[in-house]
Every structure is written in structure tokens, then in C-alpha cells.
């Protein structure tokens, strides 16, 4: 009888546990890290009755189970790491793409406005308003470059700040995890409460959202965490701190290392996944190339326009000076360098520039120049500068001495966009005219016509020397320097240009100019090539050429080699190069957002799978509550029955 009551009581207790657990589950229905718990019941040891058989004695709680699968949780962590990386990257890329590709902010209209203004100057070279407009458009173009660079810099700062913040968060989470690990150790053995393990998994999940990690679970339920190339972050209740510090090359760059490590022990290149992977990837793979390419366009415009501008003369008949100024290549010495050497790098040939940064290292005997885009060694030698420019760069020491092991980072165009500026101030200084003019003699007998003349080599010292093309017979001519009276030497052969035979439409080159001679000249006819008049305000030849640079391929050498210079031919004009930049960044954005969609689907599936095991279903809990309520009521009924039976017995005795 007493056993009967005990059995009922055990049922009552078991039902209470069941109800408590269901209540706990319902309470945690929206707890992301919560794993559903359930009561594990076991029948109590039965009693042997008079050697005939066993009678059950009720139920007891074997334990509270935790619906959990380590593999499913690991999958969620892995996918959330990827999802966070791509989502960070996607957000930043969207900002970038709206900057470079949107019609309102893109560089292309600014380029076009400048070159159109140049065309307006070509249409009205004497007009000061047209020249003023060209200068203003140049100003607005360079300020668009600088704005753009500032915006990129802001994005860069944003990404740097993001990675600093993420490092702080990782440290906080690692500390919390170490604490939870020690709590789990204290709880002892395998008996650590499920809620503590959920806390552990929650922290792991949060860590995984910030950086890709590997996790090893110990027998006592504690977790060890490794990041990067297997460096430990948390071992049991020990943890290591990360810190975000300035890079050895560039103080404005962030590098990540373990606290207390020496300079240069950067682990950021090994960190992938999570938010930090997104920030670092954006900075290194998207933003830095973008800024470099912007600089390249600026550098290309400056070099091409300046060269053409120097080949013309302004309203005062003076040779044009530089139209634009542009930031010099940046050469950074490592903080770790033992030597004091500082590099001076200049651009020797803008058409040969590559879309890359470079690292120069010195091993004590020889230098090695590595192109970072493809990790190719592009030059090595015992002394600087290289015999001929490498990838269009001239590299030499500006000051100081070098020591073995020194390293330098060279960014040819990184600063070009930021320091892009208009050097001209006076609209009259725009060199719209050509420095030379060819004229047919006024007493010529034949019908020979001469073109106004083109400048081929503005640097030729004799460019503006007065030269007479004299026909010594109806079919032969000489090119005579008027000052000395002697023939000019042929730039191609070096021979004196005397008694040359003439074909109508022939191009004659000398002294850095070329003219085209057509028609039928007669013996004694002359054509004079001389300095253009200083008041030739209607001459638009050079303005026309400046405007034509708009569609001239200046950047990005291709496979084809120019037979004249022996160098690879450039393939892209400015807008073409910009279109390539837009395509690059847009493709990256496209890939990232597609990757993000895939990763989100994977994460969703992993969460669904995990939650189908570990998540709480309120309806199910409602069922459990009904179940336990009923068993509670039944057990209670049994106790009442026991009471009644006891009363019955007492009544029988009392009579």
C-alpha cells in the first residue's frame, strides 16, 4: 500500500519535471542558442513480491537530455562565417559600385566634359571664355578625381575601423568563451548543464560570424578555438588577445597580430571568413586596386595632356607648360628596415605601367623587384636604378643607405588621384596653337601646296628654326636651314636632306616637325617652315590634338609591340580603362551578391536542419504539457485512491 503511494508520488514528481522542462523550452523558444531539453525517465527498481514476480515501484528522473548534434552546429557556424564575410563585402561593394558606376558620380562624364571643353577651345581658340571654361572643366575633373579618392579613402577608413572593431569583438568573445569554459570545467565531468553548453555554442557561433575558426571539443565539454593558420585563440580557460596595429609599410593601414608579438608578424592574410574576412578582403582585393586604378587614369591623363600641351604654344607664342600636376609614385620603407635608405620612384613611361604594386627587397648582395599582382620577379640586379625602366618605373635611392634584409613597398599610382591638380591658372596659357607654320613662297610658279605642319617631337631643339624647302628642279628638293644655309639632316637616316626626289602628297620630316607637300611645284619654288607667329590666336592645331587624346589609347599595354618604339602598344583610352574598372568592380559585386545568396541558402538550410533537432516547437510543448498534465492528474488520482483505500481500511478497523 505504502509502495502504491510512493509510486504515485514518483509519477507526480516526474510529471512536474516534465512540465518544468516544457515550460523551460517554451520560455526559450526565441533564444537563438538554445537547444531543446527533454526529461529522460527511467522506471524505478521493482520489488520482488513473495518470490513470485516483480511489482513496479514508479518512475524516476534519469536526466535532462539536450537535443543537440555537434556536426549540425558546426555546419551552422561554418556557413554563418561565410555568410557574414560575403554580407560585409557585399555591403561595402554596393557602396563602392554606387560610387563608380552611377551616372551621377561616375568619372566618365567629368572626363567627357573636360575633353569637350577642349574641343570648344579648338572651335574658338581665340576665345578667352572658351579657354576659361576649359580650365574650369579641368578643375572640376580633377576635383571629381579627388572627391572620388576621398570617398574611396572614407570607405577604406570605414573598412579599417570595421576590422579594428571586429578585433575588439573577437577579444571580448574569446574572453567570454574562456570564462564559460572554466564554468563548464567547474560544473565537472559530463554533467555540465545544457544551458552552459548552449552558452558555449552561442559564443562559438558569434566568434564564427567574425572570423573563420576551427573548434576542438574536449571531453569535459570545453571548446578550444583556433584561427588563421591554426594559431590558438582559446585553449580551455586560457585565451590570447589579438590587436589591430599600424602596418610596417603604411601607418594608415591596419594589420592584425597577437598582442605582444613583434612588428611585422601580421596574421591578417591568414584570416578569412566572418566579418573580418569581409573587411580585409574588401580593403586588399577591391579598394586598394580601385584606388590604384583611379590613380592610373589620373596619371595617364596628366602625362598625355602635359606632353601634348608642351608641344603647343599659348596665346603669347610660348611653349605650353604642364597642364596638370599629379601625385608622385609612393615608395614606403618597412619599419623593420635596418638601413636608412628611402626610395625615389618616378614614372618614366605611363603607357608601360601595370595595374600592380611592387615590393623591392635587398638581400645584402642584390635587389629583387616583385610585382605583387602576379608575384613575378620582374627585375633583379646588384645596383639601383635598373638599366632601363621596369614596367614604366624608374627606381632609385633618394637618400640614405640600404642594409641587408630591407624591404620597400612601391605604389606607382596610389596617390596620383588624390594629388591630381590643374597647374595652369591663366586661360591664355592654354597652348592651343602649334609652334610652327609652313607657308608656300609668294612667288612660286607651280601649284605646290603645303600643309600647316605637325609637331612630331616637341623636344627637338631646332623645332622652330626657319627652314626652307627649295625645289632645285621640278622633281627634286632640298631642305635648307635658313640661318646656316646648309641642308638639314634627315631624322631617319642622319644624311643631309639635299636633292631628294619628290612625289606629290609626300610627307617631309625634319627638326621634329612634319609637313605634307602636294600638287606640282616647279623649279625654284620654296616652302618655308618657321616659328608660328605669337599672335596666331586662331590656330587650333594643338587644341585639336589635346581634344583627340580623349580617344587615344594611352594606358594598359597589350600584347602587340609597336615597331617604332619597340614597346608593347597601349590598348585603352581613358574612358575604356574606366569601363574596365567599372566592369571589374561590378563583376566582383555580382559574384559577391550571388555568393551571398548561395551562402544564405546554405546557412538557412543548416539552421533549419539544426533547429529541426534542437529548436523548440511550441505545439509540441503544448502536447507535452497536456501529456504531463494528464499524467500528473492521473498520479494525483492514484494518491486520492490510496487515501480512500486507507480510509476504507481504517473504517473497517474502527468498527
Amino acid at each position, binding site marked *: 500500500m505504502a509502495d502504491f503511494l510512493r509510486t504515485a508520488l514518483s509519477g507526480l514528481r516526474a510529471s512536474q519535471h516534465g512540465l518544468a522542462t516544457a515550460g523551460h523550452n517554451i520560455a526559450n*523558444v*526565441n533564444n*537563438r542558442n538554445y537547444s531543446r531539453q527533454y526529461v529522460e525517465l527511467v522506471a524505478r527498481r521493482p520489488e520482488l513480491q513473495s518470490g513470485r514476480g516483480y511489482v513496479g515501484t514508479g518512475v524516476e528522473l534519469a536526466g535532462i537530455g539536450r537535443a543537440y548534434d555537434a556536426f549540425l552546429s558546426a555546419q551552422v557556424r561554418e556557413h554563418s562565417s561565410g555568410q557574414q564575410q560575403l554580407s560585409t563585402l557585399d555591403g561595402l561593394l554596393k557602396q563602392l*559600385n*554606387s560610387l*563608380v*558606376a*552611377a551616372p551621377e558620380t*561616375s568619372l*566618365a*562624364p567629368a572626363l*567627357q566634359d573636360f575633353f*569637350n571643353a577642349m*574641343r570648344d577651345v*579648338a*572651335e*574658338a581658340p*581665340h576665345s578667352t571664355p572658351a579657354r576659361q571654361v576649359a580650365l574650369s572643366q579641368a578643375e572640376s575633373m580633377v576635383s571629381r578625381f579627388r572627391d572620388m579618392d576621398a570617398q574611396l579613402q572614407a570607405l577604406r577608413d570605414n573598412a579599417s575601423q570595421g576590422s579594428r572593431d571586429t578585433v575588439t569583438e573577437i577579444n571580448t568573445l574569446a574572453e567570454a568563451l574562456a570564462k564559460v569554459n572554466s564554468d563548464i570545467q567547474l560544473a565537472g565531468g559530463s554533467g555540465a548543464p545544457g544551458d552552459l553548453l548552449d552558452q558555449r555554442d552561442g559564443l562559438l557561433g558569434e566568434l564564427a560570424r567574425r572570423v573563420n575558426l576551427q573548434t576542438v571539443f574536449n571531453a569535459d565539454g570545453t571548446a578550444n578555438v583556433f584561427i588563421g593558420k591554426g594559431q590558438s585563440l582559446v585553449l580551455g580557460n586560457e585565451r590570447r588577445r589579438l590587436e589591430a596595429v599600424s602596418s610596417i609599410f603604411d601607418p594608415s593601414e591596419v594589420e592584425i597580430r597577437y598582442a605582444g608579438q613583434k612588428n611585422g608578424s601580421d596574421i591578417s592574410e591568414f584570416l578569412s571568413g566572418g566579418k573580418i574576412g569581409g573587411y580585409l578582403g574588401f580593403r586588399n582585393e577591391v579598394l586598394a586596386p580601385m584606388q590604384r586604378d583611379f590613380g592610373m587614369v589620373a596619371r595617364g591623363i596628366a602625362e598625355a595632356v602635359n606632353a601634348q600641351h608642351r608641344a603647343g604654344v599659348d596665346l603669347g607664342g610660348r611653349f605650353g607648360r604642364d597642364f596638370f600636376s599629379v601625385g608622385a609614385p609612393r615608395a614606403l620603407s618597412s619599419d623593420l628596415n635596418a638601413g636608412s635608405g628611402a626610395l625615389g620612384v618616378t614614372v618614366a613611361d605611363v603607357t608601360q605601367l601595370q595595374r600592380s604594386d611592387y615590393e623591392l627587397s635587398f638581400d645584402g648582395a642584390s635587389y629583387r623587384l616583385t610585382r605583387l599582382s602576379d608575384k613575378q620577379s620582374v627585375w633583379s640586379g646588384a645596383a639601383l636604378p635598373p638599366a632601363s625602366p621596369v614596367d614604366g618605373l624608374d627606381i632609385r635611392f633618394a637618400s640614405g643607405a640600404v642594409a641587408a634584409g630591407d624591404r620597400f613597398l612601391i605604389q606607382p599610382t596610389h596617390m596620383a588621384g588624390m594629388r591630381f591638380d590643374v597647374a595652369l591658372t591663366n586661360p591664355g596659357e592654354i597652348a592651343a596653337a602649334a609652334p610652327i*607654320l609652313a607657308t*608656300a613662297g*609668294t612667288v612660286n*610658279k607651280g601649284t605646290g601646296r603645303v600643309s*600647316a605642319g605637325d609637331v612630331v617631337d616637341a623636344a627637338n631643339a631646332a623645332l622652330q628654326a626657319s627652314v626652307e624647302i627649295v625645289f632645285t628642279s*621640278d622633281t627634286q628638293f632640298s631642305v635648307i636651314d635658313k640661318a646656316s644655309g646648309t641642308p638639314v639632316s634627315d631624322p631617319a637616316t642622319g644624311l643631309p636632306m639635299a636633292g631628294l626626289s619628290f612625289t606629290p602628297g609626300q610627307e617631309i620630316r625634319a627638326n621634329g616637325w612634319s609637313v605634307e607637300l602636294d600638287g606640282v611645284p*616647279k*623649279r625654284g619654288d620654296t616652302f618655308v617652315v618657321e616659328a*608660328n*607667329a605669337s*599672335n*596666331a*590666336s*586662331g*590656330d*587650333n*592645331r594643338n587644341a*585639336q590634338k589635346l*581634344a*583627340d587624346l580623349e*580617344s587615344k589609347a594611352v594606358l594598359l599595354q597589350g600584347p602587340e609591340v609597336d615597331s617604332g618604339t619597340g614597346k608593347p602598344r597601349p590598348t585603352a583610352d581613358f*574612358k575604356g580603362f574606366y*569601363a*574596365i574598372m*567599372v*566592369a571589374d*568592380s*561590378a563583376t566582383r*559585386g555580382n559574384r*559577391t551578391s550571388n555568393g551571398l545568396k548561395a551562402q544564405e541558402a546554405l546557412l538557412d538550410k543548416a*539552421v*533549419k536542419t539544426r*533547429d*529541426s*533537432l*534542437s*529548436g*523548440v*516547437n*511550441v*505545439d509540441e510543448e*503544448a502536447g507535452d504539457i497536456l501529456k504531463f498534465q494528464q499524467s500528473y492528474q492521473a498520479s494525483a488520482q492514484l494518491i486520492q485512491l490510496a487515501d480512500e483505500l486507507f480510509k476504507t481500511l481504517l473504517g473497517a478497523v474502527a468498527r
Partner: protein
Amino acid sequence: MRISTKYLNEQGINAIRAFQDAVGATQSRIALGRDILDASDDPAGSARLVEVSYQIGATRQFNKAITLAGGRLALEETTLNGAGNILQRARELAVYGGNDSLGPADRQALAREIRELRGQLLQQANAKDGNNEYLFGGYKSGTAPFSDNGDGSVSYNGDNGQRLLQVGPTRNVAVSDSGDEVFRRIRTGNGSFVTAAAGNRGGGVIRVGSVVDAVAYATPQLESYTIKFTAPDKYDVIGSVSGAIVSGANFAPGQALKFRGMEITLDGQPHGDPATGDTFSVAPAPYQDMFTTLERLAGALESPLSAPADSARLQAGLGQGIAGIDLALEKISEMRGKIGARMNALDQQADVNGEFDLRMQQIAKDIDGFDYAEAASDLSSQLLALSAAQQSFVKIQNLSLFNYMR
């Protein structure tokens, strides 16, 4: 499979959020009238769009240049037309001046009118365009190209520059001609050679002549010749390089002298025969500007007629003047022809540019193929999906076993 309540919740919310995103994107597309909102939606298209929009802008600039060039050329054409009318009037006066019935005063009046015309021509040559630029100054378009020296000569202050404007990706059109080319580079005489009498006593009048055999004319070279009368009916021809090429040929008044591909008429009557010792020169024609031609014509009309040779000189002067004006008119019509050809080229280029622009617009539209009707229908289907997601969410949320546990 168990579905956790949290997952069910999130699923419903996610669906609603996704549809809201889509509705928002469609709304932005409609607001901006653009299909590509973000370059990453269509990387190749965005890059292509950069180029295509650039081409459209460049074509616009070229069309601007065409308008500008057309205006300038039309102005030059009008100016040349005016110059042609002036020369035409001068020619009429010159022809009239040859009339024997005119007295000295009449010829003086004619000379005055011709000088007047010369002044008008000078004004045309110094014409300016709407930008206050001289039309015929070459590159020195800020300086008046022609100045009258007061002694009957005119100086040219411009140069030979010719301004080219780019009106298409590969087409340049000249929008100016130098005054040197238009007004000064005109051969005298008949355009090839010039004849003159040199202070002769006789009344022989040498006409301007013509080149009848262009090959023989310049063979073996261009040179000057002297026609010398050894008797009133005999002459020699001596070349400056070749020496004597004709000697003792017979002459009859009105007969054409023929040598080296040239044919030159020498009129004896009615002004009298050449005298013995008279010489006439024939030389390759130099350039003479239109103003000098008119000045000389006026001079010829002004000179008094006292000796028989004077009359011959007047006739010769008028003949040369008329020939000079004819050559000038020829030059003017040649220049107008060139301008016409350039204006044709401009029209053609305008057509080409128009077509190109149209094609580029089409390409831009194809890449960024925005269609309001399509966007509107997208929007309504997305709104439908959104409201379905919201309703199903609420319905599912209302389904709970607890609702029945009362």
C-alpha cells in the same frame, strides 16, 4: 521533420522581407526610369554603358561642331558671294572702259568707281564672324588681315593657317580659308603666263594669250621669253634659259604667235603696227592680289591718251584687268565650290552622326532596357506576393495548440 517555432517565425518574416526588398527595388527602378540600379546587376552591361553614354556625349559635341562649322562656312560663302558681285561690277566697268567713244572725264569717273569697288572688296576681305574673329586672317584671326598702304598696295597681315574642326570620329572639315589663298594667290595674265609691252614706240597690242599645249608649255622648263621685232613684220623669240627659239618669223597684224605651247595674239590695227625694235615680254605669271588688279585697272583708265602707244597701253591694260578679274572670279567660284563641298561633307556627317547617335541610344536602351509597363506589372505581382506572404504569416501564427487548451 520537426519544425521549430522560431524557424517558422523567421521563415515567415524572411519571406515578407524578401518581397518588400523586391517591391522597393522595382519602385526605385520606376522612380529613376532605369533598369540597372547597381553596376553588379549587370557588370558587362554597366561597362558597356559607360562607353556608350560616352559615345552619345561625343556625338553631341560633334554635332555642335557641325552647327558651328556650318555657320562659319555659310558666312564665308556670303562674303565671297559679295566679293564676286563687286568683281563682276568692276569687270563690266572695264569692258565699258574700252569703248572708243569715252572721253577722259568718263574714264576718270570709271576709275573712281573702280577704286570705290576696291575699297568695298577690302571690306569684304576684312569681314568678321559673329565671334569678332576675322574670317580671312588664317591663324592670326585677331588681326585685320588686310591693310591699305595708301599707295595703291595692300599688305597681308595674316598667315596661311587653315582651321580644321573635328565633326566626326574620323572627319575634319576646314572652316576657314586664309586671305592669302583667297585674295592674293591669283595668277596674273591668263593664269599661266603674263604678257607685256615694254615702252614701245609702235601701236602693237599684245593680248593675254593662252596655253594651248600644257605639256609643251612647261617643257623643258618654265622660263620668260622676249619677243623682239627686228622689222615691223619680223620677230625673234628669245628664251631666258633656252636662248633664241624663234628667229626671223613673219608677222602679220592679228596673227597669233605660237611657241612653246603658247598662243599669243598681237593686234596691229587699228592702233598701228609694231615698230622695229619694239619688244614684248612673256613670263610665267606671278601672283597678283585682287586689289592690285583693280588698282592697275583704275590706273590704266586714268592714264592720258596722247600717243598711239598710249591707246595700245590702255587696251592692253584693260585686257589684263579684265583677264585679272576673270581669274579672280574663277578663284572666288573655286573657293565657293570648296565651301560647298565642305558643307556637303558637314551634311553627310550630320546624317552619319544622327544615325550613330540613334544606334547608340538604341544600344543603351537595350542594355538598360527599362520599360514602365513591364515594371508596373512586376510591381503588381510583387505586391500580390507580399500580401500573400503577410496573410500566410498571420494565419500560421494564429495556429497554436494553446488556442484549443481552454
